[in-house]
């Protein structure tokens, strides 16, 4: 019987035993951790490094997001880093020699109130000034781009228009992780799965190693890329982060013929929807209100987002939910990430990406690698340092950045 099965594909990376010591250790084998390791090896020649993953590679938020990539953020600091990420997404399939189905099918952010319309037009203007492609669409243009959207005025919140970023889109998230992992492996990075960090070794205030479920590993530098578990690691290391971990749920339908040509997000009725390459409708909405590490949330959140989806897309009314799941997102009060140094010497943190980390993966990796290698901020991640909560220089993207949460 076994000979009838297709041949098992070759593994894209090895599973080495951890060495006694490394030049740098990245904690967290999701998209951000792998991208960081890739750029450390590629741009800084740091190849004696390891990525430690407590579960399996890219099994956390990297496998749980709704794969949306866009850069239409309001504030200059955000537009700069997310637009840089988008430019990297555009070249990564070739650079990593892996077609991870990056599809620039555009992202539409609907406006349903006069307030939405004004905020949206302001954001389009801000985006254009920052070199981010953005357009304002009237309802008829919305309908032309996405014919299945209900733009009639017989719904509670009629569509009054939308912003549109043509270069935005989606990518297949697990393939992105595998693409980075394969390149990391080729460059000599050790990817170590099932290796949970249980503590840190310090010499004074300087980190000198990590304790793990696979033994003690000495290292000169540690980069934390643990998303929802960042606070847990910070506590082990002896400092606090201004982060709250929340469940964020998403769902898919069964497979359908291609009906949805773009990505539609609505903050007001609160759902975002795209159709994956295979054909399933992929939907998400807001976080569950309570703190949670359970990788699951409450069902009323799912009900609400489906009600919103059916109102906007009447054609979905008889589709079935195939699967729902949750991730743990690391939210900050200004809805912007935290990148940079920590109160512990030689320990660096990349966290707080909250509900929108996937789109930022390449830029997070590129800039965080710079920070780890040089000990100084990259031009793009400098505004996102932990110190901003003391200086008051927040990058307040709540309600500003087409953030749907």
């Amino acid at each position, binding site marked *: 019987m076994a000979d009838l099965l297709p041949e098992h594909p070759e593994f894209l990376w090895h599973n080495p035993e951890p060495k006694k010591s490394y030049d740098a250790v990245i904690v967290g084998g999701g998209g951000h951790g792998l991208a960081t390791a890739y750029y450390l090896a590629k741009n800084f020649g740091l190849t004696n490094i390891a990525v430690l993953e407590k579960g399996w590679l890219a099994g956390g938020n990297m496998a749980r997001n709704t794969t949306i990539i866009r850069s239409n953020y309001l504030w200059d600091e955000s537009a700069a880093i997310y637009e840089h990420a988008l430019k990297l997404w555009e070249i990564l399939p070739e650079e990593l020699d892996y077609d991870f189905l990056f599809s620039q099918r555009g992202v539409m952010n609907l406006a349903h109130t006069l307030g939405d319309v004004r905020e949206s037009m302001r954001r389009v203007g801000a985006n254009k000034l920052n070199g981010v492609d953005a357009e304002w669409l009237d309802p008829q243009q919305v309908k032309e781009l996405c014919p299945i959207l209900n733009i009639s005025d017989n719904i509670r919140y009629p569509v009054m228009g939308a912003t549109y970023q043509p270069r935005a889109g989606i990518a297949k998230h697990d393939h992105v992780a595998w693409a980075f992992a394969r390149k990391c492996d080729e460059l000599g990075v050790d990817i170590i799965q099932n290796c949970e960090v249980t503590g840190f070794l310090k010499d004074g205030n300087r980190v000198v190693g990590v304790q793990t479920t696979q033994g003690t590993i000495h290292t000169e530098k540690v980069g934390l890329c643990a998303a929802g578990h960042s*606070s847990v690691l910070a506590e082990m290391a002896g400092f606090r982060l201004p982060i709250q971990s929340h469940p964020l749920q998403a769902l898919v339908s069964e497979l359908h013929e291609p009906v949805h040509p773009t990505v539609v997000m609505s903050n007001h009725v609160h759902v975002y929807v795209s159709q994956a390459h295979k054909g399933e409708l992929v939907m998400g909405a807001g976080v569950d209100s309570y703190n949670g590490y359970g990788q699951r949330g409450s069902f009323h959140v799912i009900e609400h987002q489906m009600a919103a989806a059916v109102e906007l897309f009447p054609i979905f009314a008889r589709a079935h939910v195939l699967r729902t799941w949750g991730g743990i997102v690391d939210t900050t009060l200004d809805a912007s990430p935290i990148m940079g140094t920590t109160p512990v010497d030689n320990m660096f943190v990349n966290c707080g990406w909250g509900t929108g980390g996937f789109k930022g993966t390449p830029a997070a990796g590129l800039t965080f690698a710079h920070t780890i290698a040089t000990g100084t901020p990259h031009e793009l991640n400098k505004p996102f340092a932990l110190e901003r909560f003391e200086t008051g220089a927040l990058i307040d993207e709540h309600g500003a950045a087409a953030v749907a949460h």
Partner: protein
Amino acid sequence: MLLISCPNCGSRDETEFHYGGQAHVPYPENPNELDDRQWAEFLFYRDNTKGAFAERWLHSTGCRQWFNMLRDTVTYEIQAVYPMGAARPDKAAPAPESGTASTAPDSTTTGTAAPDISGTSTAPATPAAGTIAPEGATK
């Protein structure tokens, strides 16, 4: 969906409640004396506990009263519901093992439906000083 036992109204669906984040975060006693770091701590830093977490909830579509809850952030199991101003039940001074649970009425809730601390077998919370105003509750 969480089933939350409101101290005044009994068990209701989570959708009737509003989440208030970490409990027991008092407003600074001497706000004028805080430096930037201490203000940052008060404004932006909250515990992000994996495990038993003391948090505030508001029964916004019921009695509209705040209360505290001890909930496990991994299993989501609700371990205790207790009044604003009371000490966290699992951190309170250990009570004698003499089954005082039914003899300590909760002085901080109103009305006749003052419940036991539901869902917990630990000692009752220390009665607070006659107020149900939340410590540092957001408005």
